[in-house]
């Protein structure tokens, strides 16, 4: 055992991928939480990708060959999760909603990473007045309630409501506006730290251009934490999207299914005791965010040696090992 630990074994690709390597390293409770998170995320992704196959009806379908769907029908029979006041099938809209959510996450987080990482690298590396201005602006935006910012940006872009891609882009941009300052701060701080490292100085001495130093030496090192931020922000993106939809600044119901919008419509049903129109999309939001957060949290803990649980050397010496572990992490 001990000699193996010191010879750096050649790792397979599976070992080096963010999530799978974390599963291997984890033990006990941490592993349980990570696995629950991975399973929830997998369900979400499968629903998003295979929505056309999984959903019994279309997201804006209100009738089939047998006639118009009943409004506010209780769960059961043809509509296992019931129908909404507009006659939409709840199950179908929940499944299609995962596709909308996944698309928005990808659009928003990718845009935020590109803009935020770029600004963070440039601002952190060059410093000076540009850096100061960007920091003040980013701090101002960062401090402001994210949802309000998202609402204003979303209205500015689509002037109310719009179709699928229009709505996706508007929500994506709105969420991007919220996230850019966060990525900017993280990457800028890392860049400033790395700038003082010997390998950057030696690159400067050798005569490498600024673009090369930023693009090659700093970028690779500063972005190691990105998978973690990605999972944490993806969950926030879903919550922001749902909030936008709930307030009616999201995507139109005829162009896509959106959980937050459905919850908005369900609020008035609640007073008359109709629970299925709200509980199912709400549960979808909670489970998706829960899954993403569990994965992100576990990865964070596993990356931090102080928080990482360790596999016990021998299962019989339980007591002593637990005590050691506590001392290390405290």
């Amino acid at each position, binding site marked *: 055992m001990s000699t193996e630990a010191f010879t750096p074994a050649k790792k397979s690709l599976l070992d080096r991928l963010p999530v799978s390597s974390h599963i291997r390293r984890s033990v006990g*409770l941490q592993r349980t*939480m990570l696995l629950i998170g991975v399973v929830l995320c997998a369900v979400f992704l499968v629903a998003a990708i295979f929505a056309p196959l999984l959903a019994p009806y279309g997201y804006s379908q209100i009738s089939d060959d047998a006639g118009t769907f009943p409004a506010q029908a209780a769960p059961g029979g043809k509509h296992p999760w019931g129908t909404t006041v507009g006659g939409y099938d709840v199950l179908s809209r929940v499944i299609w909603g995962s596709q909308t959510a996944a698309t928005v996450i990808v659009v928003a987080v990718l845009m935020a990473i590109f803009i935020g990482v770029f600004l963070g690298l440039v601002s952190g590396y060059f410093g000076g007045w540009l850096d100061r201005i960007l920091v*003040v*602006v980013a*701090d*101002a*935006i960062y*401090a*402001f*309630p*994210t*949802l*309000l910012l998202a*609402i*204003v*940006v979303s*209205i*500015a*872009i689509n*002037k109310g409501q719009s179709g699928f891609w229009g709505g996706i882009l508007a929500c994506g941009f709105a969420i991007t506006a919220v996230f850019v300052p966060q990525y900017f701060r993280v990457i800028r701080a890392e860049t400033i730290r790395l700038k003082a490292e010997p390998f950057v100085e030696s690159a400067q001495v050798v005569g490498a251009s600024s673009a090369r130093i930023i693009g090659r030496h700093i970028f690779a090192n500063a972005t190691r934490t990105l998978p973690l931020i990605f999972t944490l922000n993806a*969950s926030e993106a879903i*919550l922001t999207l*749902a*909030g936008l939809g*709930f*307030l*009616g*600044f999201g995507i139109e119901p005829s162009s896509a299914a959106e959980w*937050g919008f459905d*919850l*908005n419509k*369900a*609020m008035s049903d*609640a*007073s*008359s*005791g109709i*629970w299925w129109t*709200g*509980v199912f999309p*709400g549960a979808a*939001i*909670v*489970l998706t*965010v*829960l899954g993403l*957060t*569990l994965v992100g*949290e576990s990865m964070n803990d596993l990356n931090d040696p*102080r928080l990482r649980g360790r596999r016990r050397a021998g299962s019989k010496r339980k007591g002593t090992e*637990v005590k050691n572990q*506590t*001392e290390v992490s*405290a």
Partner: protein
Amino acid sequence: MTTLIDTPPPTVAAPKSKSAGGGLGKYILVRFLLIFPTIFILVTLVFFLMRITGDPITAAQGGRLPQEQIDALVHQAGYDRPLFIQYLEYLGQIATGNFGRTISDGRPVIEMLAKFGAATLELAINSLVVALLVGIPLGMFAAHKRDKVPDALLRFFAILCYATPVFFAGLLLKLTFSVGLGWFPVAGRASTTTELAMSRLSAPTGIYWLDALRSNDLAAFGDIVHHAVLPAIALGLLTAGVFLRLVRTNVIGTLGKDYVEAGRSRGVSEYRLVTKHAYKPALIPIITVMGLQIALLLGGAVLTETTFEWKGLGYQLAQYLTARDFVAVQGIVMLLAVIVAVTNFVVDILAALIDPRVRY
């Protein structure tokens, strides 16, 4: 996270503390001056973003009046002038303390802010109370039972609090406690009679329970509390999860400190160690985080208010946004920006007073 960093030995800190007076003064001044660019940037941002959305006249009359008439009205109101001139004019108005009247319902913006701001403040206070009552004891308990089943369950609970949007929490609470059990009202800040009584008061603060207590109206107070429970829980749980995790991490951090170990070796009970020795220093970071939570609370308030038809700033903001009422939206955003900027300032100063290492 800061508590995980080891405290520097006192010998290192000593020379710094001598010059702390001047350093602190300068730090406070710099932080104070930073409030203004923050507000300025947000106000500018919202000004231009709102102008992109169109104008309030088209939003209200679009389709109902012929285009020429709309154009004439837009011209009369000055919305067709160059943006930059409108912007300078707007800055000039703010500088002289003139926030104008809302376009959609013609109220003075200041009056609107005072009325609805009080409602939002009430909601924020209520939910902060819920968050502290739930978050701190549970966090201490989780730290006490570290890595055991209760701790795992509480951590899960904290993540669940974060993962549940306030409007969904509100929906579940409504379904269970209003519709199902009939314990609490479905929506609103107070019943109609109480609302009337509140509007008749001579010098109201606008915070209903405070007004009811001041006028010794116990029936109204009961009614107000009755209405306040569900919204406060819905919004409070969101923050409670954050507090729970923070208290847990920090109590675990302080439980490992030498002075706690010394207490333990003297035979102080584990319960007393958590509640007396370890928990007070662990509360310091909460002050900082509470400041950050204000922004979260204000954002959550928009959703909570819409869920429970709580007529506060957030509820109104959604209405004004739909009506493209620039003046009202800018007024609300301005107020929120001021609140956020001032809170962050106060929090930073508190943090600097408590921990000299923060100053720079």
